[in-house]
C-alpha cells in the first residue's frame, strides 16, 4: 500500500512539475496561428510592476499561453464542454453539420451605432452623382438559421433590415435575404458560408454578383465561365480559432481564374502588384487572405479591361471574394476599407470619376462598425 501511495504522489508531482519547468526553460511562442492571436510571454522583471501586482498577473497569463501542449488542451476543453451538452463556446454556436456560427443576439446589435452608421451612409449617398448601391449581407446565423442548435437565440433580422429600409429608403438597396434563402433550400448543404469561418463562399458571392448586376444594369455571366478552381482544401477559419475543436472539418476555398484576376494591376496602400491573389497565404492559417492579400485601407485596381466604367467599393472583407467577379465590368475599381483608411472618403468621390459606388458589408459588421463616420469626414 505504501508503495502505491508513493508511486501515485510521484506521478502527480511530475505531471504538474514537468510542464511548469518546460514553460520556464523553453523559448516562448509569439503567435498562435491556430487561435489567430499573439500569445503572452514571460515578462521582464520590473520592481514597479511587482508592487502593483501587474508582473504577477503577466506571469500567470504567460503560463496559460505558453503551456507546452496548449493546442491539445484547448481541444480537450472544447471536447469536455461538448460532452456536457454545451452548444456555444466562446461566442460561437456549435451548429448542425459541423458548422460554426457566430452567436449574435438582439443585445449584440448596438442600435445607436447602427442608426448612426445608416445616417452617415444616407448623407454620403445623397452627395453623390454616381449611382450608389448598398448590399448588406445577412449574417451567417440568419441565412443558416436551420442549422442553429434548437432554441438558440439569434437576433431578429427583419427588424434590422426594416431599420435599413426606413433610413436609406429602397433606392439602390440590394437585399440578398431571398436569394440566400433560395440557395440554402436548393442546396441543402447550405454552402453559403464557410463551416469554420465567418465569410461567405465563392458560390454565394456569385449569387450576390448576379443580384448586383441586375440592379446596376450589368450583364451577369455564367458561373462556370469564370473558371472557378479549388485553391485550398485545408482551411480552418476564424470561428474554428475561437472554438478549437478536434472534430472540426476543414473548408475548401474556391477562387475564379480569369485573365483579369491574373493581370490586373494593383496598388495596395502603395504596394504595387500584378494579379489579385496572394498565393503566400495558402500556406498560412489565414487562407481567406488569398483574396487580395487581406484587407488594406485603399486598393486601386486597373483591371486591364476597357469597359469604360469605374467603381468605388466601400467594404469589409466580404468584398474580397466578391469583387473578382466584377473585374470584367469595370476598367477601374477602388476598394476602401474604412477601418484602415484615414483620409476623407467623400473627397475621393468628388475628385474621382466613379460611375458606381457599392457599399458592401456583412450587416452585423456594418451595424457595429465604428469607422463609418469616415465616409463623410
Amino acid at each position: 500500500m505504501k508503495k502505491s501511495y508513493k508511486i501515485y504522489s510521484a506521478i502527480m508531482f511530475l505531471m504538474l512539475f514537468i510542464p511548469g519547468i518546460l514553460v520556464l526553460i523553453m523559448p516562448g511562442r509569439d503567435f498562435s496561428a491556430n487561435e489567430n492571436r499573439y500569445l503572452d510571454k514571460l515578462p521582464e522583471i520590473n520592481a514597479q510592476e511587482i508592487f502593483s501586482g501587474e508582473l504577477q498577473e503577466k506571469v500567470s497569463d504567460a503560463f496559460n499561453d505558453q503551456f507546452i501542449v496548449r493546442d491539445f488542451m484547448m481541444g480537450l476543453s472544447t471536447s469536455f464542454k461538448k460532452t456536457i451538452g454545451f452548444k456555444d463556446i466562446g461566442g460561437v454556436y456549435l451548429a448542425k453539420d459541423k458548422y460554426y456560427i457566430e452567436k449574435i443576439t438582439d443585445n449584440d446589435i448596438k442600435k445607436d451605432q447602427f442608426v448612426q452608421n445608416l445616417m452617415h451612409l444616407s448623407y454620403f449617398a445623397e452627395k453623390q452623382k454616381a449611382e450608389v448601391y448598398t448590399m448588406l449581407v445577412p449574417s451567417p446565423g440568419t441565412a443558416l438559421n436551420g442549422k442553429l442548435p434548437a432554441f438558440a437565440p439569434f437576433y431578429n433580422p427583419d427588424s434590422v433590415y426594416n431599420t435599413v429600409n426606413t433610413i436609406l429608403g429602397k433606392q439602390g438597396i440590394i437585399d440578398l435575404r431571398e436569394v440566400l434563402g433560395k440557395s440554402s433550400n436548393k442546396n441543402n448543404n447550405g454552402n453559403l458560408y464557410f463551416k469554420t469561418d465567418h465569410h461567405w463562399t465563392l458560390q454565394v458571392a456569385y449569387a450576390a454578383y448576379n443580384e448586383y448586376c441586375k440592379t446596376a444594369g450589368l450583364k451577369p455571366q455564367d458561373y462556370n465561365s469564370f473558371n472557378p478552381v479549388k485553391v485550398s482544401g485545408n482551411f480552418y477559419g476564424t470561428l474554428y480559432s475561437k472554438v478549437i475543436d478536434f472534430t472540426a472539418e476543414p473548408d475548401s476555398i474556391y477562387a475564379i481564374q480569369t485573365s483579369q484576376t491574373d493581370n490586373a494591376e494593383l496598388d495596395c496602400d502603395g504596394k504595387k502588384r500584378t494579379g489579385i491573389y496572394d498565393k503566400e497565404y495558402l500556406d498560412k492559417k489565414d487562407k481567406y487572405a488569398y483574396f487580395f492579400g487581406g484587407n488594406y485601407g485603399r486598393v486601386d485596381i486597373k483591371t486591364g479591361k476597357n469597359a469604360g466604367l469605374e467603381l468605388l467599393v466601400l467594404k469589409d472583407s466580404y468584398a474580397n471574394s466578391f469583387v473578382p467577379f466584377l473585374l470584367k465590368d469595370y476598367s477601374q475599381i477602388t476598394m476602401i476599407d474604412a477601418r484602415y483608411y484615414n483620409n476623407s472618403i467623400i473627397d475621393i468621390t468628388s475628385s474621382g470619376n466613379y460611375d458606381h459606388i457599392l457599399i458592401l458589408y456583412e450587416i452585423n459588421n456594418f451595424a457595429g462598425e465604428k469607422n463609418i463616420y469616415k465616409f463623410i469626414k
Partner: protein
Amino acid sequence: MVFSSIIFLCVFMPIVFIAYYLCPAKVRNLFLLLASLFFYAWGEPVYILVMLFSTVFNYFAGRLVMMFKEKLMPVKAKTTFIISIIIDTSILFFFKYTGFFIQIINSTGFSQIPLINIALPIGISFYTFQTMSYIADVYTGNAKAQKNIINFAMYVCMFPQLIAGPVVRYGQIEKEIYSRKLSSENTALGFQKFITGLGKKVIFANQAGALWEEISTVTASGNSVLLAWLGAIAYTFQIYFDFSGYSDMAAGMGQMLGFHFPANFNYPYQSKSITEFWRRWHISLSTWFKEYVYIPLGGSRKGFLRQTLNLFIVWTLTGLWHGAAWNFVIWGIYFFIILFIEKCFLLKLLDKIPKILCHLYAMFFIICGWIIFACEDLNSLGSYLKTMAGAGVPLINNYAMYKLYTNILLLLIMAVCSTKLPVYVLGKLAGRLKLNEIAGFWIRAVFTFIILITSMALLISGSYNPFLYFRF
C-alpha cells in the same frame, strides 16, 4: 496566487511540497512560513504588511495575556485581551467597512464625507478571525501562548487556508504546529482530496458560474421565470462547489503537510431544514461565531428574549462578515428570521411531513437566500426576485429553453454530486466487487488523473474562472 491557476499547480505547488518534504523537520515551519509569505505577496505585494503587522501584534498580545495570567493579574490580562480584540476588529473594520460606513453616514444627510477608496486585503477576514480566536483561547486558557514567533506566524499565514478558509482555530492545530507526522499515505490521500476540490472549483463551479453570470445580466424583456430560476440554481451550485472546493483543496494540502483541518462542509444541500443547513455549511465559521460571540453573550442561558437577541447579533454579524453591503446584512437577518421561526415551532412541524417536502422547503429558502447574497445592488435584487416570482415576465421563453437543454446534464450531475449519493453508491459497489484497498486506491487515482487533466484544460483554455473571495 489562486489554487485554480496553472502557475500555482505547475510551479508553486510542486516546488513547495517537494522542498518541504526534503526539509529537516526543525526548519519546516520556517520554510512553510516563507512559502506562505511568497504565496500571499504574489497577489498582495503591498498589503502583506497589514498581515505581518497583525501577526506580530497578536504574537506579543498573546504573550502578554499569558504573562499576566501566569502572574495572577487577571485585570491586566483582561485589559490586554480586550485591547487586542479591539485593535484586531479595528483593522478589519478599517479595511473592510470604512466605505460602507461612510455611505451610511452620508445617507442620513447630516454630513457629506468624501468616499475614500480602500482596497480590501485578500483573506483579511479569515486571518483576523484566526488571530482573534488565538487571543481568546489564550485568555480563556484553552491554549497556551505560542512563544516562537515563527511558529505563530506560520499558523496565521499558512497558505492552504489563508485566503478562503476554513477558519482554523489555534487550539485545533496547536499540537501539530510542534510536531506532525508526514506519511506517504497523507501525501497521496491529501493529493486526491486536493484534486477533488480543484475539480469542484474548475469543472463545476466555474461552469455554473458562467451560466449565472450570463443569466444575471439578462434584461426584463428577454427574461422568464424559468430562466431566472435556472440562474438562481446555477448560482446555488457555483457558490457551493467553489467554496467547498476551496475548502477541500485547503484540507488536502493541509493533509499533505501533516495537518488536520476541521471539516467545513457536510453536504449542506441535503438538509431538511435551514437549522440543519447551517450545521452543514461553512462549519468553521458558524462554530467560530458560536464559540466566540454567541456563547460569550450568554447563548441560551439567559432566557428566551436574550437568546433571541444573541441570535440576531450573531446573524447580523455573519451577514456583514461576508461583505460590506446592505444585501449581506439582509441575508444574515433573513436567516435569523427563518431560524427563529424554525426554533419556535416549524422544526416540530417539519418532523411530521414527508421528507421530500422538507428538502424542497429547505432548498427553496436556500436558493432565495443565495439570490440575496449575489445581488449587491438592492434594485437588481428586487427585480431578480420579482422575475423569479413571475411578475411581468412569461413562464418560459426560447432563451430559457436553450439554456435549460444545454445545461441540464451539468445541473443534474452537480445536483447528484452535492449529495452523499456518489460516495455511498461507489462505496457499496466497491464492497460488492470485493475490491481490495490497493485496487480501490488506484481506481480513485485514475479518477483524480482525469479530473486534473480536465481542470487544467479548462484553465488553459481561459474558460471563466472567477475569484469569489475578494470581498471576504
